[in-house]
């Protein structure tokens, strides 16, 4: 923008910041400065000048600081935010970090100062970690863009709720059934989208997710419509209920009854489910099917020339990804005790996809970190109330601008002869479908 040898960057930076502030004024003055309010029966306008002034001042100062620091003319720009060397170091530490994180997750409920709130948050984060790992199969490995993943989460949740309420099936029986049903729906989505690529695939998966939600919303007698389904039974500890009586969990194990037992049990349940998901995905990556997914992401035409059945490969990716969402969904139903279509809106799909992309497509560890950052961070910002989602949206934009390939951008090979070398993300394709 400016010549590198400018004597003092200050006047230029000031001018630039001023222009930016003017644009901010143009943006903010009508939307922030004039608020539509209802006076009596009519709409009127209420001026709010101070907040426009604050916003414009913030933009001016922010831009000025940036102009003088990061965007200073002549400043040598680093090519990547993290050099390959640090990245290799990171991926090495990740090898130890991952078991450490699992160990931490296991002892979390018994750490001092951890109460119900923290465990609840842990359950929430782990649910999204599991969903992220499931979607990672479809998006990260097979390179198929899925904007309707939440549909399978919904199928899992409603399968459990309806099976439990209508037939009295237990959670442990419903869990695999919910997974299988979700996988079947995954195949149903897979069929029409086999020939589609890129953004056509994106809109069809989005439409599919919306269709499922709208049907759940409007099929009153079957799903309860917008009122949802309540009173979903809680799982037992392998047949022993969490209740106060003599045959309850506390009495059986000689503990004093505490409602926290169930919460802790739920926590371990989702931790186990998430770890099983992780095990499966890691295992699948090393099997021919996993390699075929990645090859499909790299080059579909080459795949076909090598005898890989791309139809089956895509359908398996959709089915397995959906299956894990189905498991997560039935866990969600049993934890909440109440489900309604409101929990399965498009924004959830977008959030899970954001977790996968932010984590670094294909990286299990990155996805877990991203889920912790996004969900944990979101809860942490609770005090900002209304401004929370504004910040959330902005942070999503900023992170993408900062690291477009996600936190862990390198790919680790599924097999090696002598040395396992991380493959730079810039060489890895992200699929066209």
């Amino acid at each position: 923008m400016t010549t590198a040898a400018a004597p003092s960057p200050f006047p230029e930076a000031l001018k630039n910041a001023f222009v930016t502030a003017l644009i901010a004024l143009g943006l903010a003055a009508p939307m922030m400065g004039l608020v539509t309010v209802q006076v009596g029966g009519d709409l009127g306008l209420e001026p709010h000048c101070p907040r426009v002034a604050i916003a414009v001042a913030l933009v001016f100062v922010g831009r000025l600081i940036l102009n003088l620091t990061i965007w200073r003319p002549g400043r040598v720009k680093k090519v990547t935010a993290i050099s390959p060397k640090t990245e290799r170091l990171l991926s090495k530490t990740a090898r130890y970090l991952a078991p450490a994180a699992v160990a931490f997750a296991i002892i979390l409920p018994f750490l001092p100062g951890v109460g119900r709130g923290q465990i609840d948050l842990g359950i929430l984060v782990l649910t999204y970690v599991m969903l992220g790992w499931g979607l990672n199969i479809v998006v990260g490995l097979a390179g198929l863009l899925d904007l309707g993943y939440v549909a399978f989460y919904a199928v899992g949740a409603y399968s459990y709720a309806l099976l439990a309420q209508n037939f009295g099936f237990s959670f442990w029986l419903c869990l695999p059934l919910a997974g299988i049903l979700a996988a079947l729906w995954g195949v149903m989505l897979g069929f029409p989208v086999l020939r589609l690529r890129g953004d056509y695939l994106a809109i069809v998966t989005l439409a599919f997710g919306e269709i499922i939600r709208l049907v759940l919303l409007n099929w009153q007698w079957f799903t309860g419509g917008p009122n949802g389904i309540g009173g979903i039974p809680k799982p037992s500890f392998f047949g022993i209920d969490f209740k106060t009586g003599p045959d309850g969990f506390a009495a059986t194990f000689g503990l004093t009854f505490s409602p926290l037992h169930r919460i802790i049990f739920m926590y371990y349940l989702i931790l186990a489910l998430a770890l099983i998901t992780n095990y499966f995905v890691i295992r699948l990556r090393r099997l021919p099917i996993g390699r075929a997914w990645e090859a499909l992401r790299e080059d579909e035409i080459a795949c076909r020339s090598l005898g890989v059945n791309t139809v089956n490969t895509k359908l398996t990716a959709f089915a397995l990804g959906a299956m894990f969402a189905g498991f997560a969904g039935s866990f969600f139903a049993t934890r909440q005790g109440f489900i309604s279509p409101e929990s399965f809106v498009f924004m959830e799909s977008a959030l899970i996809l954001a977790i996968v992309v932010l984590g670094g497509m294909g990286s299990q560890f990155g996805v877990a970190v991203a889920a912790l950052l996004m969900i944990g961070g979101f809860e942490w910002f609770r005090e900002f109330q209304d401004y929370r989602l504004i910040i959330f949206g902005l942070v999503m934009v900023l992170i993408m601008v900062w690291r477009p390939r996600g936190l862990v951008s390198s790919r680790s090979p599924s097999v090696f002869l002598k040395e396992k070398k991380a493959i730079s993300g810039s060489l890895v394709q992200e699929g066209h479908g």
Partner: protein
Amino acid sequence: MLRLPNERARPSFGRPPPTQETPPADGVFRPALVNGVTLGSIYGLIAIGYTMVYGIVGMINFAHGDVFMIGAFLSLIVFLALTSIGITFVPLALLLVLFVAMALTALYGWTVERVAYRPLRGSFRLAPLISAIGMSIFLQNYAQVTQGARFKPLPPVVTGGHKFGAVDGFGVNISNVQIIIVLLTVALMVAFTLIVSRTNLGRAQRACEQDRKMAALLGVDVDRTISLTFVMGAALASVAGLMYLLYYGVVDFYIGFVAGVKAFTAAVLGGIGSLPGAMIGGLLIGLIETFWSAYFSVEYKDVAAFSILIIVLIFLPSGLLGRPEVEKV
């Protein structure tokens, strides 16, 4: 539980708008046709924004629906501001609203591109998509925080209507708002077709669509062309926002998502990247919705629209007018 904004019971697309007087014995077919064309015009105008951006940068501008919502809000604010300074002559007020809101919304479109997309140009395909989703969340909640979560009802500004072909009792009522919407859409379509086919900007756009690098080598200012594409898309979305305001008489922060998804559906149905495709897609989605509502059920109108999209794409994987993707071996 993580709460993101949800769809609530609000006036939504496809339902008979509250401002419209219920037609007398017209039957079902003709009102549905008229409503469908009106609704389709609004969808079509938003869809053009999606399709133009897709054509030139190859990304789904997920925040476009929210730019439309901002456009509707800005139209409302400008209209109220004009009323408060005494400009109450409706045609003049509407004309001023149209231009001022277009300019302000275009500024939003420009800023969105500058902040969220330009730094990611040439990057990986999913990064701008996630950035766009972030922008969409931002704009939605920005509107909610600044303007409040309650929806804003505006009393009918343009009233009255005409009965056409009433001689034999088989007439159809068309309100003035509907006439304005359809005529304005046709005018804008003609103008845009001319811009794209006749002007330097249009040529630059088409050049960037074909090969951005080559266009830059030949002296096309790619950044400027892309910025102008976003500006044009936002301006059209703002017109759609004004139409929505006049037609439904109500605005809230959530209208952007629903409209955005429908318009995007329309763009894909018509063949993304094709301007006439976007308009045809918009009209089709509008008609499917109103006819489904009229003959079957209002609840499942969106399911019908989405199902038809999926069915069309199974047989025409590049939409109705899209260029089929040639698989080069």
